């Protein structure tokens, strides 16, 4: 019987050398070892960055556009939550505890890890053909017929076709490509654009965004986009079969036979 316990770590799956008898029947993994390891590193960083990002946000839950912004200025929008600073007029009668020390430490450490993971993933994806073959939509995916069929099938909440256990459909390709090639770099960029030291060396990285506070606001809006992405990602996994999809991302295997 297939259980997650039968293949406890992704590392085991990378070394079919350990059981030569199984080699002949083991198909190529659904996700390569590198994709699986980086996926879970991304997951770890995602939650570290999200939690610490929220903690930092709480110390000033107001957003501005342009170069400067503070409580003497009118915000673009406010988040209606209490703050961890007495200075911020939130309308709530209390101040939350300050968590910015460790939050900033962890935020930047997780940012480094996510950047290194992203570089590794991008180099692998580019040179192995992963991006070209499996991730970026080709002309056949982008035909009107294929696109409308995929959209209709999603709107009807139809269970995915068997083929989708082995390869991404056009909507997945578009969503993943957008998150990887647009949202991720923008997130790193808008984060660095808030650094007075980084922008002293590369001032154009912040001026092109409209200023420090614009960068901060974009960083927050990208967070919202990433959280929405996560919700849809999880919803789709539940609809497609949580156990099988998750196992494929842990062990690389798609069907039960390979586990026997």
């Amino acid at each position, binding site marked *: 019987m297939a259980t997650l316990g039968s293949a406890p770590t992704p590392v085991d799956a*990378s*070394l*079919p*050398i350990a059981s*030569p008898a199984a*080699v*002949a029947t083991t198909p190529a993994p659904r996700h390569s070892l590198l994709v699986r390891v980086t996926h879970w590193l991304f997951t770890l960083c995602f939650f570290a960055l999200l939690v610490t990002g929220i903690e*930092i*946000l709480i*110390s*000033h839950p*107001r957003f501005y556009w342009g*170069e*400067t*912004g*503070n*409580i*003497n*200025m009118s915000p673009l929008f406010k988040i209606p939550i209490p703050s961890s*600073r*007495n*200075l911020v007029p939130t309308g709530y009668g209390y101040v939350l505890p300050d968590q*910015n*020390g*460790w939050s*900033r*430490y*962890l935020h*930047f*450490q*997780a*940012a*480094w*890890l996510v950047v290194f993971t992203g570089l590794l993933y991008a180099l692998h994806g580019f040179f192995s053909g992963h991006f070209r073959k499996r991730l970026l939509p080709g002309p056949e995916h982008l035909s009107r017929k294929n696109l409308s069929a995929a959209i209709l099938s999603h709107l009807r909440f139809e269970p995915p076709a068997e083929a989708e256990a082995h390869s991404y459909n056009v909507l997945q390709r578009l969503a993943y490509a957008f998150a990887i090639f647009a949202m991720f770099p923008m997130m790193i960029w808008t984060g*660095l654009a*808030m*650094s*007075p*030291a*980084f*922008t*002293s*060396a590369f*001032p154009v990285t*912040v*001026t092109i965004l409209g200023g*420090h*506070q614009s960068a*901060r606001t974009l960083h927050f809006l990208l967070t919202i986009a990433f959280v929405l992405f996560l919700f849809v990602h999880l919803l789709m996994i539940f609809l497609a079969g949580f156990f099988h999809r998750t196992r494929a991302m842990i062990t690389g295997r798609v069907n039960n036979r390979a586990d026997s």
Partner: protein
Amino acid sequence: MKHLSRRKLITTGLAATAGVTGLGVATHLAHKYGLVPPDGGGIYGPGETLTYAAQRLLTRHSLAREFSPVEISAKPLANELAPFSDEFKRFQADKFTDWRLAIDGLVDRPASFSVSQIKSYPSRSHITEIGCEEGWTYIAEWIGTPLSHVLDLVGVKPHAKYVVYFSIEPDWWESMDMADALHPQTLLTYGMNGDDLPVGFGGPLRMRLTRQIGYKNVKFVNRLTLTDNLKPFGKGTGGANSDGGYAWYAGI
């Protein structure tokens, strides 16, 4: 299949060995070139060291962005302050005429300077943005004497690595490396927007670093110490904020 796997195993092994060796060499070099911050140990040490080392390599001489006079914030924000100590109030009642900045530690000629003396030295002003780690910012014109000028007067010993700077108010001190100490925008600030520096913004004397965020810009500075070792100060992390759980280096 088996050969391929063996090849993969060998490649992975080699990559891992190269990685570990590379990390060892990088750590050695980072220590050698002073790229490890005083809080570079502990669980957040790797991230802090990467940030500090990367930003030092990229920004050793770069100038923070300067703005035009029209961009000066109409309503700058002075952060909250703890109630002033009696000592500070006495100086304040006297319009800070007796305020002095003492400099000691690894210098050839320890000295102390009055604010009017400091004002008589060559001045530099810049219109720069100051940002709080909480996320808010404002732009102001900062007027002062470059810290490097005053350090030249006292003669910094070659092996000094940090300037530790203290506020007159208790538990308020920070330190910076020599790259920031000798940076042309680092000012002993006594003026703001064409006037004296208001008390709320750190008057009579505030340490202003343009490439680090607010909490490194200590208000009411009255003492500097040059040192090559931050361990004896406070808990040894190089500042009141880092002793309290914040990063020592605040370039981001």
